[in-house]
């Protein structure tokens, strides 16, 4: 009895510690970003000027950089992640090849992001440069488009894994009922399975978006790191995560330091919102 008490106690301590760390991180980031938020107010989020020399800081270029790359990546990855989840959750359900596919897709998520960055620099950037030359735009190779492509590959497993799970969970009696009414396999998929699994698919998308928003290393390596508002799909830009990675080590001024932390806090809040909403949708699905 005593032993179990100690065991339970240690569980409680571990759980509380993790929660405390999260809250403490949010709190200390809020405190540290106060000077910047006080100095610039809401303008911090709407000013395009990021000028460490004259101590003026506006995060708009990075907000835009993060949102554009993440949503573009989501858009690019969607056909692939959906196809994979439908294929392994419905057509190949229970077959050996389905688990092989699952392992492969999960491996994508296990590759460290610096490797994606390297691959992007060595393979993707020259390809994009060729495309840019044929389109007649400045042949940088790096930029928003390249970063979005890398992100798209990286987030496929996040969306695919969850979507496959909910597609597998669709009760077979529902599908059998559809077949009994004379529906073809495609009709059943489109009219019964996908609508039923809609919430889970949405949740997967939201979670993969959360991953895209916060990805740092691979993006920093291929986005071109320019602190200006991107003018086109091929412009160099910076995201919230990449500007922090770039400038944090040498940020000596108090306001500069605080502004970078404020960007971190914004990123934290945005990813937390997507994470929480995603989880909420998944949980609602399970109850149903």
């Amino acid at each position, binding site marked *: 009895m005593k032993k179990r008490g100690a065991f339970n106690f240690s569980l409680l301590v571990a759980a509380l510690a993790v929660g405390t760390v999260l809250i403490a991180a949010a709190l200390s980031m809020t405190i540290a970003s106060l000077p910047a938020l006080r100095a610039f107010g809401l303008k911090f989020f709407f000013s395009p000027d990021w000028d460490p*020399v004259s101590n003026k800081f506006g995060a708009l270029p990075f907000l835009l950089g993060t949102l554009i790359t993440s949503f573009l990546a989501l858009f690019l990855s969607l056909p692939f992640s959906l196809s994979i989840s439908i294929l392994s959750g419905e057509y190949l359900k229970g077959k050996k090849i389905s688990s092989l596919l699952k392992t492969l897709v999960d491996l994508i998520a296990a590759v460290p992001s610096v490797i994606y960055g390297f691959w992007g620099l060595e393979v993707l950037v020259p390809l994009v440069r060729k495309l840019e030359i044929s389109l007649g735009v400045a042949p940088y190779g790096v930029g928003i488009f390249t970063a979005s492509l890398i992100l798209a590959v990286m987030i496929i497993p996040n969306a695919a894994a969850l979507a496959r799970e909910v597609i597998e969970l669709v009760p077979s009696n529902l599908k059998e009922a559809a077949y009994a009414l004379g529906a073809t396999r495609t009709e059943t998929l489109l009219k019964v399975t996908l609508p039923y699994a809609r919430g889970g698919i949405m949740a997967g998308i939201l979670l993969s978006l959360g991953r895209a928003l916060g990805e740092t290393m691979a993006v920093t*390596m291929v986005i071109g790191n320019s602190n200006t508002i991107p003018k086109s799909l091929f412009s160099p830009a910076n995201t919230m995560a990449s500007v922090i990675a770039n*400038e944090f080590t040498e940020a000596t001024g108090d306001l500069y330091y605080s502004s970078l932390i404020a960007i971190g806090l914004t990123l934290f809040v945005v990813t937390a919102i997507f994470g929480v909403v995603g989880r909420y949708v998944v949980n609602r699905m399970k109850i149903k």
Partner: protein
Amino acid sequence: MKIRNLLAALVLGLMVWGGRVKELTGAGATFPYPLYSKWFDIYHNETGIMVNYQAIGSGGGIRQLLNKTVDFGATDAFMSDEELEKSRENPILHFPTCVGAVVITYNLPGAPELRLSPEAIAGVFLGKITRWNDPKLQALNPEVKLPSLPIVVVHRSDGSGTTFVFSDYLSKTSPEWRKRVGRGKALRWPVGLGGKVNPGVAGLVKQIRGAVGYVELAYAVKNNMPYASVKNKRGNFIKPTLKSVSLAASVKIPPDTRISITDTDAPEGYPISSFTWIIFYREQKYANRSMEKAKAMLNLFWWMIHQGQQYNESLLYSKLPEPAVRAAEKVLLSATYGGEPILKHK
């Protein structure tokens, strides 16, 4: 059992011995890191004193020294008056350890040796000169046929001392640069792509035809990258070499050694050169530091500006010229412990 006792005695003995061996910690600039790690290695072999140096960047070095979590910091850009204000009750001292330079590197067919003027460099990095065969560039290089390629500017994306030195130079030589961009470790760049650290800039320059960027001299030499001669204040085109960089530092040094040597007056000096500094507190009796530790640290510093200098050139860092060594000596002699000078005999 006996063996275990023996081991315990050994461990205990090591611990006692370890207590006597002084370990010093420093943090900061990445630029001189290869030199510092060689110095500290040699110094450890000679004296048994371990120096643990973390190359976390100049900004981090300054922050850690202000937080008193390290014994000394290292920085590529000397601390501003405003930053020094944060430790008014115990002033922070600077002394230079070596001289480095920033070179303009480029990717052009045939890798010709270019000659550049400060006006041309500012024009390119402000985005006003956009093609390689621009008359301003061609006039400086009559013997090279420059191609009609668009210029792609590559700069550092991370805050860095290299950017500070480069922009410090342009701020001195170009009024327009001073007004529109200014000097700092991170800038609001009018044009171009950002690459992270030296390899990031070099990688982009190597990949993009017509690209131009700036990197440290040592990095360009090690990687066989072409780099330009730059016209200095006296009107001479100077190729960056260990010698011309050291010559750039042969100027009058102020007592606190905080001097920018870009756009140097020295006739044979390469104009985009800079010292890199070690920073520490003048009064070493703080936060329970022992006299022994303070003495060990000052002895190390003294060694760095004298015996240590012989290793500079093999690692592509320029030596401190004589006036800089004299100025650094004076700084070290002014350090105190409880009000008493630490290095008396020298």
